[in-house]
């Protein structure tokens, strides 16, 4: 019986040691690149198909969590917010035939789409809200991406504590998804400042970090390599997956 107890104790100790081994391996570049292969697999096998479920008005969450800084500390943003975003212009440029500088009035005059969808955070929580605004596919049709363009990049007014800008990106195909939205309104009212006013991205088929708040500049590009750490987004540059579908 002592022998069995010894075996059991050794096994328990070995299991507890797994965490230490796992932590060590996490810092290993080669091992990391092996782990990263799962992202390509998920992108290929799950991809972006079908439509996110749309809910009824009664299912909207009473308290939609905020998971970022309350409002950007950016001086220009503060100035625009004080002026009720009247001087705000959304810039759409890059590899497009017809670059745009659009005021909120111009955005509101474009065809408006609405959706009541669930926002799935990478942390694990979910909240339901109604979003309305201009679909990205309409915006891309207006601007006309050129041949060779592959990605749509969203630059925002937000920066982290170190001054690093928050940005996000989608492939052109993901941006053409009918539910990919440049939202102007949340639950029927203009988006509040802490929820991404005046324009935010809403991509209900991917995790919440894709849905960048406070979008100021949309850039159509051929490659993501030249932007910041080159992974296609602020959180992606910190190690999160560019394909945030799972």
């Amino acid at each position, binding site marked *: 019986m002592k022998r*069995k107890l010894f*075996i*059991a104790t050794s*096994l328990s100790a070995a*299991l*507890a040691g*797994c*965490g*230490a081994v*796992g*932590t060590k391996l*996490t810092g290993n570049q080669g091992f*990391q690149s*092996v*782990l*990263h*292969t*799962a*992202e390509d*697999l*998920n992108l290929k096998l*799950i*991809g*972006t*198909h*079908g*439509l*996110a*479920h749309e809910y009824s008005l009664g*299912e909207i*969450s009473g308290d939609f*969590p905020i998971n970022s800084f309350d409002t950007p500390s950016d001086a220009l943003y503060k100035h625009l917010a004080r002026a009720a975003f009247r001087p705000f212009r959304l810039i759409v440029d890059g590899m497009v035939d017809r670059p745009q500088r659009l005021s909120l009035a111009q955005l509101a005059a474009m065809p408006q789409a609405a959706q009541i969808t*669930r926002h*799935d*955070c*990478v*942390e*694990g*929580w*979910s*909240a*339901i809200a109604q979003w309305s605004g201009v679909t990205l596919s309409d915006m891309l049709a207006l601007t006309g991406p050129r041949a060779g363009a592959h990605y749509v990049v969203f630059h925002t007014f937000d920066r982290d504590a170190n001054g690093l800008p928050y940005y996000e990106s989608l492939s052109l195909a993901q941006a053409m998804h009918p539910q990919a939205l440049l939202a102007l309104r949340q639950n029927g009212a203009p988006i509040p400042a802490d929820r991404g006013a005046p324009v935010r991205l809403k991509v*209900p*088929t*991917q*995790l919440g970090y894709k849905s960048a708040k406070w979008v100021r500049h949309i850039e159509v590009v051929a490659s993501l390599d030249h932007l910041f750490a080159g992974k296609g987004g602020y*959180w992606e540059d*910190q*190690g*999160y*997956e560019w394909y945030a*579908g*799972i």
Partner: protein
Amino acid sequence: MQTGKVVYRHSAVTRLTHWLFFIAFLALVSSGLQIFNAAPYLDASDKTDPARRVLQISSPRENVGATTVFGRTFTTTGWLGWTDDGMGGKTDRAFPGWITIPSYQDLADGRRWHLFFAWVMVFCGVAYLIWGIGRHDLRELLLRPSDVKKLLPMQLYYLRLRKEPPAHGKYNPLQKLAYTMVLFVFAPLIVLSGLALSPSFDAAVPWVTVLFGGRQFARLWHFVLMIALCGFFAMHVMLVITTGFRNHITSMITGRYKLGAHDGVGI
């Protein structure tokens, strides 16, 4: 029975997928607890809803950890809620650093581990099952209709209410029940409930998330199924230790197993 006779018990595919599955299982549990720590509560609902909260691990104040299950709160300082931060200190963290990968709070790397080893687990399971069709490894492991009536006598034997186990093959009826449940119920359900958490998978195959009662409910199922598989794992390891540890380990490495008193009649 021919006690002492050495037989070739586990084929190479069984042995390889067994150990890969074992590594994947440890990695998935540890990285899964890391991911859980980012939102340490589980709701029986689609969207997050504190009114339908089943489990919450929290730290109500400095140096105190608390776990609330179905509205009843227990103090779990040191184990859950207020635990080691994986960097030598203590902090408000649901599962402690010694059980998570990485040990410190790091959702991005936890997800990388989890999503990679999920594929390893699926690959092992599918490879083992496809390869096992019509082969003795799998056939002798699965519960058959004729085993059902032997389940109770076998349980009575384990409870020492019966002198002899019912006649059975390489695995006894309760073992077969456990393996069959793991292979065909728990493993597929834990994969599906994990996929149900994916917004893209939900858009592509909406009935899966609905089947589990919504996204947050699927997260709860995923956790409960993990506990069930850990229970199986603990039982499995305990039986391996108590019925000839060396013999079992040797057979799962080399394939060769020495028949003993624990093996059923009729091998």
